[in-house]
């Protein structure tokens, strides 16, 4: 199919007609920016074929705002050697005319729906029954005419075209098709689906039930078999127990044990009898031995008596000897004591005398001293008394002269004050100087005055001038009067003071004060002297003197007495005059000596007494022992005793031998082991009996259990289960066989069908492969049963890479979309079907390299098919070897 002319009028943006003429049979390139009408041309082409001329949906084609327009499309094209002219107009002028003129043949004209249907059959699409034509109606053109941005979406448009493509493929290889293959596949699938799941082929439905029943029964069978096994085991156990029980009942095994027990008991009793005898024998041996011991002791007693007598004799001799020795010591000690006593007496007298002498000498010394003392004391007393008298005199004088310092001071002060006042008075007093002619007298204040002199007038002074009269001079000023008064008062006070002291003047007072002091001093000197004479006072001195005199008298008396005594002692005195101390010392030494000797003597006497006592005791003991020895019949007794001992020892030996033999018997019989035997047999018997009873109980239990189990009809049940299991197995196996057969059948059918499909698709695959290898080095693409491109395999960086169509990038999908369409077109072309390829702004997502390849592919395709390529990127398509048609130009030309 080759379009040669397109005329579009009153169609959307083409309000006026445009005409594209002289279309090339191969590639036609239309360029123009957006909105210049590229898509409108494509729409118009679609409208010409797909839309019924009567369709109301053609409203869409009307130019905007032109209500009366009649959109129309006129197409001239060639196909199969015939020229077609299609005129289709909508809305205002609803028409469809198709004119077909073959080479030299008659011209056919088809109108209206007939024309439309003819075209639909020819190109392979459908019309919509109602409303606007949709993608599902577009069939082959829908696949080959790629609108903007849909080139990558092969699947949908392919779905609507598959039927047409299949007819093309089918007619090509009709000889391998099966008349009812797909129907068989569907039935096998259904039948298989009843037994196996579609996806994983696992048992399902009745098959699964059958398997489940089989497995369940198998399990039951196993369980029952186990129960039966247990039952049988129990039956065997029962038999074993019964046998044992009966055997025991027939001949109870514990009876043996009891017999053995009794035998052991008897033997034990025997041995115990022997043991008893042994015990008695032992007691007897002990008794005999005791008797022997007693006899021996008795004999020992006799021997001991003899020994005692001997030793007593020796002891007596010894005691006597000792006594003699002790007694010999007493006499010398007594002599020495007498001697020492005499010496002591002499010493005592000597000492007494010495003491008398000493006393007298002492009294003499005291007497002399006392005499001296009395003499001195008498003198001292006399001088002290004299001194005391002196002191008293001075003190008396001092008392008469007594003036206190205070009084003196006051006197001195008063005198000074008076004098001072006088001076002041004289200083300020009216001085009355007179110089009287000899003999002349005047009276001043009543006193006659002569000569010269002066007076100080401190007060009104009456001056009587004899003969003349009387003058009264009154000193001026109050002060003088006051001062005069003060002076007077001071004079009065002084006078009063002096009067109080009974003195005439201050000087007298001073003299008296000096005298007083002197008297005091003298009194003090006298007192000090007195003190020296009699420090304790005169009375003490006097008392001392009195005492000394008394003592002197006593001493004198003692001397007298002593002299009388001394004269007595003096007679016996030996020449040596020992000092008292020597005499005393000697006396005490002798006393100690005397004491020591007395003690020694005493000791010696005691020893002698003691030894005497011993001698007496030894004598008594000796006598007693001797008496014992010489007792009548003693020797006979001793002899009998010895005889008795010999007999007893013989008896003991024989008794011991008997004990030995009994002991040997006992040891050999081992009563301890015999006891254990007894216990062992007893326990054995008990245990056997107990075991017997336990077994009897177990038997009863087992019997009951088995009865119960038997009543369950286990084996019959097993047989039933086995029967059911066999059936279930058969059923399961039948289904398994059926499932396997169906599975095999389905697999085979599908495989064969797939092989066939592959055969059918071979031409399409070939075409596709041709393009793919241009685009992708070593590339190859599968086709699925829907003829859809499947997995793309191609050389990659890691060797051969493969990816499903849907996993490819948008660009790659677009490219594959375009080339698969080209392949479909090739297939259609081979079947003699019309092909027209329209690409509206396709491949905009391809990179330069791919675009270059795609251009080679498109160019190649264009050698077989007419290709209308619309683009708004003219620069991309400059190297296609055709002159692009600019749509803007077309419009203006229209």
């Amino acid at each position, binding site marked *: 199919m080759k379009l040669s002319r397109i005329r579009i009028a009153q169609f959307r943006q083409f309000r006026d007609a445009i005409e594209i003429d002289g279309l090339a049979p191969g590639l036609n390139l239309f360029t123009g920016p957006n909105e210049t009408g590229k898509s409108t041309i494509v729409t118009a082409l679609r409208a010409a074929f797909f839309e019924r001329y009567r369709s109301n949906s053609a409203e869409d084609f009307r130019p905007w705002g032109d209500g009366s327009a009649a959109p129309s499309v006129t197409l001239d094209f060639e196909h199969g050697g015939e020229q077609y002219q299609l005129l289709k107009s909508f809305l205002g002028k609803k028409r469809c005319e198709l004119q077909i003129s073959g080479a030299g043949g008659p011209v056919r004209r088809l109108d209206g729906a007939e024309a439309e249907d003819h075209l639909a059959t020819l190109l392979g699409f459908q019309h919509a029954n109602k409303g606007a034509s949709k993608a599902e109606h577009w069939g082959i053109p829908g696949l080959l005419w790629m609108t903007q941005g849909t080139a990558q979406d092969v699947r949908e448009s392919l779905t609507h075209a598959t039927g047409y493509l299949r007819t093309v493929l089918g007619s090509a290889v009709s000889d391998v098709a*099966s008349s009812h293959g797909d129907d068989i596949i569907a039935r096998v699938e259904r039948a298989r689906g009843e037994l196996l799941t579609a996806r994983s082929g696992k048992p399902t439905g009745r098959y699964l039930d059958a398997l489940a029943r089989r497995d369940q029964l198998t399990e039951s069978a196993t369980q029952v078999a186990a129960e039966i096994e247990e039952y049988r085991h129990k039956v065997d156990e029962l*038999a074993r127990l019964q046998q044992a029980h009966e055997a025991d009942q027939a001949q109870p095994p514990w009876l043996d044990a009891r017999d053995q027990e009794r035998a052991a008991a008897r033997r034990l009793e025997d041995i115990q009898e022997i043991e008893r005898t042994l015990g008695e024998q032992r007691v007897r041996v002990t008794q005999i031995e005791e008797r022997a011991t007693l006899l021996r002791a008795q004999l020992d007693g006799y021997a001991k008596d003899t020994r005692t007598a001997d030793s007593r004799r020796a002891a007596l001799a010894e005691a006597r000897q000792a006594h003699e020795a002790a007694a010999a010591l007493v006499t010398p000690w007594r002599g020495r004591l007498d001697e020492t006593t005499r010496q002591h007496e002499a010493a005592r007298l000597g000492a007494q005398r010495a003491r008398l002498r000493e006393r007298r000498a002492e009294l003499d010394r005291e007497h002399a001293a006392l005499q001296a003392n009395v003499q001195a004391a008498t003198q001292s007393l006399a001088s002290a008394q004299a001194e005391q008298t002196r002191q008293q005199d001075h003190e008396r004088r001092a008392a008469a002269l007594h003036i206190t310092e205070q009084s003196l001071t006051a006197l001195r002060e008063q005198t000074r004050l008076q004098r001072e006042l006088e001076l002041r008075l004289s200083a300020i007093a009216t001085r009355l100087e007179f110089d009287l002619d000899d003999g002349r007298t005047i009276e001043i204040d009543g006193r006659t005055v002569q000569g010269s002199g002066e007076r100080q007038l401190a007060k009104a002074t009456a001056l009587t001038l004899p003969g003349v009269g009387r003058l009264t001079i009154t000193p001026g000023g109050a002060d003088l009067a006051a001062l005069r008064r003060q002076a007077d008062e001071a004079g009065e006070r002084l006078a009063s003071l002096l009067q109080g002291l009974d003195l005439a003047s201050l000087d007298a007072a001073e003299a008296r004060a000096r005298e007083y002091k002197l008297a005091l001093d003298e009194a003090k000197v006298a007192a000090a002297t007195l003190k020296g004479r009699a420090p304790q006072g005169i009375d003490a001195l006097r008392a001392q003197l009195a005492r000394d005199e008394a003592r002197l008298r006593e001493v004198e008396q003692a001397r007298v007495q002593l002299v009388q005594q001394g004269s007595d002692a003096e007679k016996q005195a030996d020449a040596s005059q020992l000092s008292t101390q020597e005499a005393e010392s000697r006396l005490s030494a002798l006393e100690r000596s005397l004491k020591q000797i007395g003690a020694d003597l005493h000791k010696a006497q005691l020893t002698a007494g003691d030894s005497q006592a011993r001698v007496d005791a030894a004598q008594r003991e000796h006598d007693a022992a001797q008496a014992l020895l010489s007792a009548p019949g003693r020797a006979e007794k001793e002899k009998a005793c010895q005889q008795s001992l010999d007999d007893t020892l013989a008896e003991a030996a024989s008794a011991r031998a008997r004990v030995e033999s009994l002991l040997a018997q006992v040891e050999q019989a081992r009563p301890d082991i015999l006891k254990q035997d007894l216990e062992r047999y007893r326990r054995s018997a008990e245990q056997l009996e107990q075991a017997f009873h336990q077994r009897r109980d177990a038997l009863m239990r087992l019997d009951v259990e088995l009865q119960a189990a038997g009543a369950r009809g286990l084996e019959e*049940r097993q047989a039933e289960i086995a029967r059911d299991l066999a059936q279930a197995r058969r059923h399961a196996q039948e289904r398994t066989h059926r499932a*396997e057969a169906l599975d095999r059948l389905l697999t085979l059918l599908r495989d064969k069908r797939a092989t066939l499909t592959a055969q059918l698709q071979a031409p399409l695959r070939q075409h596709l492969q041709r393009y793919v290898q241009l685009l992708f080095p070593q590339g190859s693409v599968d086709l699925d049963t829907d003829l859809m491109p499947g997995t793309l395999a191609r050389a990659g960086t890691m060797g051969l890479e493969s990816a499903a169509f849907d996993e490819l990038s948008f660009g790659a999908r677009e490219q594959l979309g375009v080339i698969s369409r080209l392949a479909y077109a090739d297939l259609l072309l081979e079947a003699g079907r019309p092909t027209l390829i329209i690409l509206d702004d396709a491949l905009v997502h391809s990179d330069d390299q791919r675009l270059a390849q795609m251009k080679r592919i498109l160019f190649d395709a264009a050698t077989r098919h007419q290709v209308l390529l619309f683009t708004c990127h003219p620069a991309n398509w400059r190297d296609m070897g055709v002159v692009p048609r600019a749509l803007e130009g077309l419009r203006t030309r229209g």
Partner: protein
Amino acid sequence: MLKILHTSDWQIGKLFGQFESDDAALLADARFQVVEGLAHLAREEQVDLVLVAGDVFDAQTVADRTIHRLFKAISAYAGPWIMIPGNHDAGLAESVWTRARRLGAVPENVTICLRSEALVLARPAVAILPAPMTQRNTYADLTEWFAGADTPAGLPRIGMAHGSVQGILAEGIDSTNPIAAGRAAQARLDYLALGDWHGARQIDDRTWYSGTPETDRFRANASGCALLVSLDGDAAPRVEMRSTGRYRWQSVVATLRVPGDVDNVINTLTSLTAQDVVTLEIDGQIDLDGHRRLLAAIEQARGTARGVLADLGDLRLAPTQDDIDALHADGYVGEVIAELRAAQEGPNAQGDEARIARDALALLAGMLA
């Protein structure tokens, strides 16, 4: 003259799991019915004594009702029944016999010999020497004691045992429960009634296996009968074999080579009656039509016969060209048929693979038909 009915191996309680459940139930029931039949036979023949030589029960722990039912089934004959335990119902410490006694199911005229000791009956006057099995299996000859057992003079000595007479089966079969050959003569028995083998068989003048009265397996032997034994003085016993069984068990083995072969098998199948129990073992090859017909005949036989077991495992389905043409299997379906045919043949066509291919082919053929 002493007239005895000798039987054994009743196998009461046996279920026939290999068959469909309704068939199995009938076969199991038949074992009771045959016992009833034996009782009637004994009454009709006015025998003096019935000997049951072991395996009365198929198992020790059958249901109580089974025990009751068995002893009810023999009620038609009121004379003495002497039974010994066999290997299936051995007289163990606890056994089906002790249970039967406990249940009070054993009628007075039934004597169960659980001990190896002589049983002397007054009516009829006879001495029974039983060799009851008291273990499930034994390698000792339980009849050993017969020779040494004294019985009252003049009384017939009749032995009863359950096991295999030595020297009859092939060498090397280590049969349990042995019975010495010539035991009857050696133990001065007038008759030795044996059980265990399901087919009736004479061992010597005085020794017989009675076989089971109702066949229970496909092994071809003289089963399904009982023995009427007449003892008269020292003469050898007269033994009459009476058929008692209801069901005929047959084994059909066929190798299909030519189309006519399948017709023979089908004829056999169509001639089956309600008394038949059949096992089919068919191999060889068969065309589609023959296969269809064979399967149909088997299904039909299942309806009539009391049990049909069919083993077609080694049968190969080989559609003829006509078959394939008739199926109109063109295109890839035709290829599938060809491959399935091929899969049944050739050196690798073994076992499961061949079976699966055959089944798949049959299924496909069924769908295409």
